[in-house]
């Protein structure tokens, strides 16, 4: 002990530390509200009328708009669009040095739907649309020229205009071929688009995409096709394939075999591919060829082993366009594959010697690996669960027979399909011509007059006059039984109208809306027996009841709920709504022979997941013996298909495989066959423009067939003219176009606060408190922590004088930096014509000024952009005579002081 204490005092210290080092969690202190005087305060900043104003920018703004306008604008002014093809840019393009120009189209994208989707109906008065070609137009110099609208050009005829839904293509070259001379010789080619409809039922103006739009696919384009005097090399196939056939000889074929097949469509990637098989039916071959789908007869070579055979010939026709120049063709063979023709390559045939074989054993060898009761690939012998009629539903005749095409089967029938076949026009109500009829009478199947109130027998045969005005079955859908919901029209409907109405329950807690129990300060208006602004109330309407409390409220009712509720509300008579018709064409039939498995009655053999086969004893499936199966063994492959198994294919020897043919009348080739399979071109014979290519083969094993591709090196054709096609909106990084909309430019005057793009009007808002202290001064105190969610800039829109397009306006809220450069303070936002006011949470923006991130606060600037209708005009309410007007712009702050 002594030793320990004397020499290990550090250990003692450590123990002490550990001993005393407990946790020191204590419960939070509750209350202590007097610790700080920091509280949430409300403060208003009104518009400083002396400094706030509408600002108007430079008038060149329209040059930078992404939209062009032509027609009668919403404010009644007329707009004309001008698009100029700049000769200073086009003059540098190759087309100006072209040998010939074949096409020069101007493509203009429109925002306005010129036509319907199917181009059948024009949404504009096309006859009042005038597109003219104006020579030597210079928009930059003439943008402010009031005479611009009087500029005359040559009207482009309708035949040179092509309209689609959102595109106009102007065939400039065919309208006036001299345009090429102009734009290649420093003369701009201007397009003037004017539109003056008289019919109010069509689009009154057309909005185009200008060359300033950001998406390149939306910019105006010049589509050009021209030919340059340049050397051009093209490669042309020297021939076409006209026939393929076996070469008959004493040694080949050994019996009668069907003709081979060659892919002779030059556009196919496998053009020249030859399939040398004894097809059962060559007419049923479809591309691309799948080996497993091929039905073959016998081998093409059975006994002629190790003997050279000239077995096949392909006839080619030389391309007449190059026949005079063609002096040689080099052929070669590729993709050659031979398929072994021995019987039972997989060794799965049943025989008396080998009774373990499953192919041709007279039994279905099926292992239902996934236990789904159906044959799936890899589960042995394929069989078809079509029932004893061995006929799928789709081919059943209805009389127990089976057809080769659909006859009685009709899964699309609408009568008796237990489904409503109704095409609503969007109003939620069945109308004549909308298909199968249904009535909104509820799932009881009868309307109120026929209702009994008895759940077991809910409907009467005849109407009961005593039911008038009642709902005996209680199935009427009713959300507002007392009919007092506010609709914005009838002032007598007061439920949910957003204001207190007499008889509506309220809490008599005074103007602050809080009871004395919370605030500990009783207000004068608290408990005065009448509703005062600020007091919470229940917006029940004058009946004092919310809908859910009103008698007969029924949100789950199915009658008159404007919704189809299933059986009971329709008769399932099909789209002809006639259940007694003799027309069976609309009957829903999915099992004409009525042999489908029924899990309730345990009847039917189709789809019963069992193989139903009544063998006559020969072990072979035959017609009339029930469900068919293929006795191909567990590999599921017939002997003839086994040749296509990967392990059974061989690649023939091709020798040097390059056959130089110099257009001789006859040219023979010899190849030294190897011990396996060798394939070669044995002879080429020319007869006029026809070249016949004979193929030789030698094999050491019987062949089911083979396939290979006949190839050649295409003919190289050299021309001194080269054709070009291009669609451009830029050349050498320079915009090919300049464009403007010509319309009246208004000079803003007055005290209105107006935001508008076309006249570049924006507003500059300064704010001050009741004492005249600016908001900027207030923000200099960084200790004030401004609430974001509860601090708002509120702007009321003067809807009577504003002109806001249905698409709305996108507003940008920012401020002008010391360099007068506009800087965004928040993401641009959309304001629609339906908005009465704009309430913008502004706390974080003001905090940004407070902390110096945005510099010092002077004012807030609001402007709009060109992304939507350029002529929308938003005027904000501002009563300069009454600065305290409730609708004047105001910043309402909540902050922690």
């Amino acid at each position, binding site marked *: 002990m002594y030793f320990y204490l004397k020499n290990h005092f550090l250990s003692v210290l450590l123990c*002490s530390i550990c001993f005393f080092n407990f946790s*020191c969690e204590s419960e939070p202190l509750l209350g202590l509200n007097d610790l*700080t005087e920091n509280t949430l305060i409300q403060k208003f900043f009104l518009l400083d009328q002396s400094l706030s104003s509408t600002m108007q920018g430079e008038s060149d703004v329209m040059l930078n708009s992404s939209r062009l306008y032509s027609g009668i604008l919403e404010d009644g002014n007329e707009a004309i669009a001008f698009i100029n093809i700049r000769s200073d840019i086009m003059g540098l393009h190759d087309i100006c040095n072209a040998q010939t120009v074949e096409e020069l189209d101007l493509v203009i994208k429109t925002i306005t739907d010129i036509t319907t989707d199917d181009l059948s109906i024009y949404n504009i008065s096309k006859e009042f649309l005038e597109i003219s070609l104006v020579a030597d137009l210079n928009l930059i110099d003439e943008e402010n020229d009031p005479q611009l609208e009087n500029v005359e050009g040559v009207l482009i005829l309708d035949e040179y205009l092509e309209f689609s839904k959102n595109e106009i293509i102007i065939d400039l070259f065919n309208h006036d071929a001299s345009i090429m001379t102009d734009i290649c010789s420093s003369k701009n080619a201007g397009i003037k688009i004017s539109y003056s409809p008289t019919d109010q039922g069509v689009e009154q103006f057309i909005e185009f995409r200008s060359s300033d739009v950001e998406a390149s696919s939306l910019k105006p384009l010049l589509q050009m096709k021209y030919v340059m005097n340049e050397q051009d090399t093209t490669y042309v196939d020297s021939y076409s394939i006209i026939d393929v056939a076996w070469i008959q000889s004493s040694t080949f074929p050994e019996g009668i075999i069907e003709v081979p097949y060659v892919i002779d469509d030059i556009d196919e990637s496998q053009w020249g591919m030859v399939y040398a098989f004894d097809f059962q039916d060559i007419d049923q071959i479809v591309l691309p060829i799948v080996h497993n789908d091929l039905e073959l007869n016998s081998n093409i070579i059975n006994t002629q082993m190790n003997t050279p055979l000239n077995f096949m010939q392909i006839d080619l026709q030389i391309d007449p366009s190059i026949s005079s120049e063609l002096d040689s063709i080099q052929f070669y063979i590729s993709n050659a594959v031979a398929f072994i023709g021995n019987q039972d390559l997989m060794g799965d045939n049943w025989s008396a010697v080998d009774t373990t074989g499953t192919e041709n054993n007279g039994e279905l060898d099926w292992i239902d690996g996934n236990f789904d009761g159906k044959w799936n690939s890899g589960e042995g012998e394929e069989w078809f669960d079509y029932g004893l009629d061995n006929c799928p539903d789709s081919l059943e005749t209805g009389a127990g027979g089976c057809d080769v095409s659909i006859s009685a089967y009709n899964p699309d029938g609408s009568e008796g399909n237990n489904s409503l076949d109704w095409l609503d026009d969007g109003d939620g109500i069945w109308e004549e011509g909308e298909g199968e009829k249904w009535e909104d009478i509820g799932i009881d199947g009868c309307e109120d007059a026929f209702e009994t109130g008895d759940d077991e027998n809910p409907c009467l045969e005849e109407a009961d006059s005593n039911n008038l005005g009642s709902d005996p079955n209680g199935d009427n859908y009713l959300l507002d039984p007392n009919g007092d919901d506010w609709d914005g029209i009838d002032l007598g409907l007061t439920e949910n109208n957003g204001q207190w109405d007499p008889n509506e329950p309220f809490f008599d807690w005074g103007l602050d809306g809080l009871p004395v129990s919370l605030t500990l300060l009783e207000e004068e208006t608290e408990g005065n027996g009448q509703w005062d602004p600020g007091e919470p109330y229940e917006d029940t309407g004058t009946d004092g009841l919310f809908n859910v409390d009103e008698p007969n409220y029924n949100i789950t009712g199915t009658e008159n709920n404007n919704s189809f509720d299933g059986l009971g509300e329709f008769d399932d008579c099909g789209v002809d709504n006639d259940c007694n018709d003799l027309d069976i064409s609309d009957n829903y039939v999915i099992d004409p022979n009525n042999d489908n498995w029924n899990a309730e009655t345990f009847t039917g053999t189709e789809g019963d997941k069992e193989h139903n086969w009544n063998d006559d004893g020969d072990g072979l499936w035959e017609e009339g013996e029930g469900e068919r199966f293929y006795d191909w063994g567990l590999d599921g492959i017939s002997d003839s298909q086994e040749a296509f198994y990967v392990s059974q294919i061989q690649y023939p020897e091709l020798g040097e495989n390059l056959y130089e043919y110099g257009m001789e009348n006859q040219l023979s080739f010899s190849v030294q066959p190897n011990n396996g399979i060798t394939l070669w071109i044995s002879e080429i014979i020319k007869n006029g423009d026809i070249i016949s290519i004979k193929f030789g083969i030698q094999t050491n094993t019987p062949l089911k067939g083979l396939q290979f591709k006949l190839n050649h090196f295409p003919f190289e054709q050299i021309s001194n003219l080269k054709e070009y096609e291009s669609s451009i909106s830029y050349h050498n990084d320079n915009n090919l176009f300049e464009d403007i909309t010509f319309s009246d430019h208004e000079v803003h005057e007055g005290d209105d606060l107006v935001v508008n793009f076309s006249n570049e009007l924006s507003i500059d808002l300064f704010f001050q408190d009741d004492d005249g202290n600016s908001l900027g001064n207030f923000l200099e105190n960084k200790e004030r922590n401004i609430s974001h969610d509860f601090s708002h800039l509120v702007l009321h829109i003067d809807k009577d004088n504003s002109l806001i397009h249905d698409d709305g306006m996108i507003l940008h809220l920012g401020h002008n930096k010391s360099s007068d450069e506009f800087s965004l303070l928040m993401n641009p936002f959309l304001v629609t014509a339906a908005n009465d006011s704009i309430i913008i949470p502004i706390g974080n923006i003001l905090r940004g000024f407070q902390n110096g991130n945005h510099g010092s606060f002077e004012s807030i600037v609001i402007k709009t952009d060109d992304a939507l209708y350029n002529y929308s005009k938003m005027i904000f309410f501002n009563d300069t005579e009454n600065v305290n007007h409730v609708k004047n712009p105001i910043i*309402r702050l909540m902050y*922690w002081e």
Partner: protein
Amino acid sequence: MKIILFLFIFNICFPQATNFPLYGVGELIGNQDISSIGLGNGTFYSGNQFEISSSSPSSLWKTPFTRFSIHSGMNYLKVPTYPEQFQHDLTHFSVLFPIGGHKAFGFGLKPAYRTNTIEIDQSFEFLGVNDVTTSLPIAYQKSFFLKGGISDLFIQYSFKFNPKLSFGFQYSFLFGNQTVDERRRAYEVNIDSTQSNQMAIYEFWHDDDLYYLYEEHREDTYLKNSNKFSGSRMILEGKYIYDIHEFTFRTSIDGEMMINRKDMQNTSDTIYYNYYDYKVSDNISELALGYHYKKIKNLGFIMEARINHPIDLPEAVSLFNKLAPKERSFHFGFYKRINNPKFSLWNNVNLRTGFYLKELNSNGNDFVDLGFTLGFGLEYLSNSQSIDIALRSGKRESLIVNDKFENYLSLHIGVMTGEKWFMKRRRK
């Protein structure tokens, strides 16, 4: 050793205030010598064999050993209607070396000002619709989480000038961080007398009906104010011994203190930082006088009077903008040493008791802190080692909670071990 250092550094940073020190930088921690605490929460005297108090530089020269001292304390605080608070941790660590005849040099670390780690959840407050920008009333609630303070890393030098007069100096590096995390929640609320599936944020009775406040919208604001302190303090102390009378004089001078403040505001996940620098000029922070009467060798009486001026912090840096109070205190203590007449493992047992009266002046208002102390010490192994325990119980008028008393009870334990390092030894 690394483990010890880690535990030591980790623990010393924690607080040990006796009350709710929600002002200034927290409570002035003062003396942490366990034996002196037992003597009426004094500073200068210890009542042990060598009469050394680690908190009195002028007494340190008496040590014949290299002394390691480590003190720990636990504090229990109870204020009526508030949850009990419990704090405990290491409070003092020092090393003292004798350097030649009647001289000593030491260093150590201890808290200087501390607020305990305190969490405060204030009650809901309400604003009516006529006082807010919203269409519904607003209920708001603030919570605070405080921690940190100023630590004192000191070096000490003590020497005996003549048989009657000795002096001690202490130079302290004052450093530390203090943070106040504040969470403000403002709710737009609906008041309803029916309970819904939505959880009510508040319930209240009004006219015999129970009402529920349901949140319609909420905005959270997080504030984090961090203050980084950096300063110094010089303590000058003299001791005069005349027969059985011993007088001690002391003054402390605070050097210039730099305060770097960082405020973080996070509203709706938008965060801003503000930085401020403050400088506090030097001033006299303490004046103290002590008297020790040794009636007989092992029995004595002590008396101390002290005035402490707080650091002259700007309001913006002070906790809740409240300045720390000026303190005046009187301490009285008695001790009795019981010596072991036998040669044994232990040498003597020290019994101590005392009381103190402290007056805190804040904004012209005086608050009284009255306390009673008991102490027990055991010295062993030729007085080279000791264990001291002190119990302090007091009652203090709360500066924070009006008309309430803060009742505190603290237990302090100290371990001192002496080693004959750095001493000349005679070789045989």
